[in-house]
């Protein structure tokens, strides 16, 4: 099996799992889904510099090299995704503690029929 096929299928599986989890109603699943999606994107960005094995990330005239820029992009994306995951975990926990609901919409288990709450939102 080629490395291209392995990487492509890994990205596909991660993205599929990520999308499925993000669409779930519990914040915990959504956080996991976001993490999966960001892993998929990191691998995807990495692949955008083309897959090359055993080549230096240094440009020399005439010589083969691997593109270093996607690696820098992935590094930035990892840092941002890590920070965001931490934030969303804290936020989800805080919301759970304040509202007693783990639902993304924050809807409590009973139907809220009070006319003044929520407005048109």
């Amino acid at each position: 099996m080629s490395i291209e096929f392995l990487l492509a299928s890994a990205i596909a599986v991660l993205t599929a799992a990520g999308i499925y989890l993000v669409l779930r109603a519990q914040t915990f699943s959504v956080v996991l889904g976001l993490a999966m999606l960001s892993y998929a994107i990191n691998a995807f960005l990495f692949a955008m510099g083309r897959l090359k094995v055993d080549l230096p990330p240094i440009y020399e005239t005439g010589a083969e090299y691997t593109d270093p820029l996607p690696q820098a992009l992935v590094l930035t994306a990892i840092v941002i995704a890590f920070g965001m995951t931490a934030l969303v975990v804290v936020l989800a926990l805080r919301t759970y503690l304040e509202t007693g609901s783990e639902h993304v919409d924050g809807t409590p288990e009973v139907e809220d029929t009070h006319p003044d709450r929520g407005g048109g939102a």
Partner: protein
Amino acid sequence: MMHLIVAPILLPAIIAALGVLRISRATQLGRYLSVAAMVAQVGIAVALFLTASDGTIRVYEMGDWRAPFGIVLVLDRLSAMMVLLTSLLAAAALAHGVATSLDRRGWHFHPLFQFQLLGLNGAFLTGDLFNLFVFFEVLLIASYGLLLHGQGAARLQAGVQYVIVNLVGSTVFLVAVGILYGVTGTLNMADMAVRIAAAPAGDQALIRVGAQVLMAVFALKAALLPLHLWLPRAYSNTSGAVAALFAILTKVGVYSILRVTTLVFGADAGAVAWAPASWMLPLALLSLAAGFIGVLAARRLRVLAAFGVIGSTGTLLAAVALFDRDAIAAALYYLPHSTLAGAILFLVADLVGRARGDLDDRLHPGRTFARRAQLSLLFLLSAIALAGLPPLSGFIGKLLILSTASASPAAPWIWGAILVTTFLAMIGLARAGSVVFWKVSAAEVRPPPRRWTTGPAWAIFALLAMLTIFAGPATDYAAAAAGQLFAPDGYIDAVLGERRGDI
């Protein structure tokens, strides 16, 4: 190189870092620093605006790295206008936050506010696609903090949704950037424009996918239907000053659509030319309708203002979607108006909510409250602005959009949608105003509000009035800015210079 171009990014970064220090939090120092920095930023923005209005496109190469290898900041008429609008709006929002003591309700209001400005200014100035992503992240991260500032269960719930939606948006943004980099091998927008124009036929399909995915992300930021669902809840549950500042966040999406489409996917781009044009107009008209139907249906003033933002951004995007020079000139005149009209309505809703005590901003008859006359006048003026009635600038803006749209084959749809929704907005706003200000009983709400809190709202009204009085110069400027957008060669030459094509 003109170093002033980097100042709108550096100054908030430094002030935000100072604002996190313990001494800034424990004393009034943070507040003074933030206000002083805000005044300085307005000054810088005015200077940049005056510089850019001579029509030269100025480029700032970060760290003196030559484009397209380094990151460039580009100052043209459009970005100067956006930076000026940001700083004026932010000054009013900050003044409101300070006057209502919002900044004392949590620790990091001022640093977050400055980081928000850093992200906004950066997004408007950058000429690099990945850098645009980074500045989007900066402004989003700051907006998460600001949105939650002051806390409360409703705000937290709205915050979770807002954060999740935007995180997914950022992921999709990276997909688009990745595809475009994979095909063109560059992230510099000017260089990308050159390479896409010269791209072989086999790459067109991928470029097309990248372009459309990118536009979908910008549409999410601009709250274009059906990607608008995050906005009403997030904006209506946050504090007034923050919501007023957020009125510009949807415009970041509009700006990005304008910038990237005219520059990278413009007339020279072959098969991807005007990539979003095919779907944007119907969606813009639908979000215009959804926004103003929401105004009609809202049961709280803040919700009403949030739907007003969706509706007026829809109007703006309807003009943008024509991708015609005159229509975009009209849109660029309407853009500052739409931002300011949304912001003033959020400020008024906040003031009314504070004055009415327990009833807050709900559209229910209640007791009379302090400063009812002044607040009702402010509400009337902001309602006129949002609906786009004469004599304020919204009327001129809508008139310009209608007249430039009349040449388009979709003219009946645009005319119909804009005129009907203006009528809907009038009904919704008139109903809200009469319930809040007229159906009151004699007993007054007890605690009188603080003084000076209406100042920022009047300041925004003054800006709207200026936009109306100086409509002539403003439309000239908008036309010149649109002219620059439709001559992307000037931008590309300014960024790449003689290196164009030989890299």
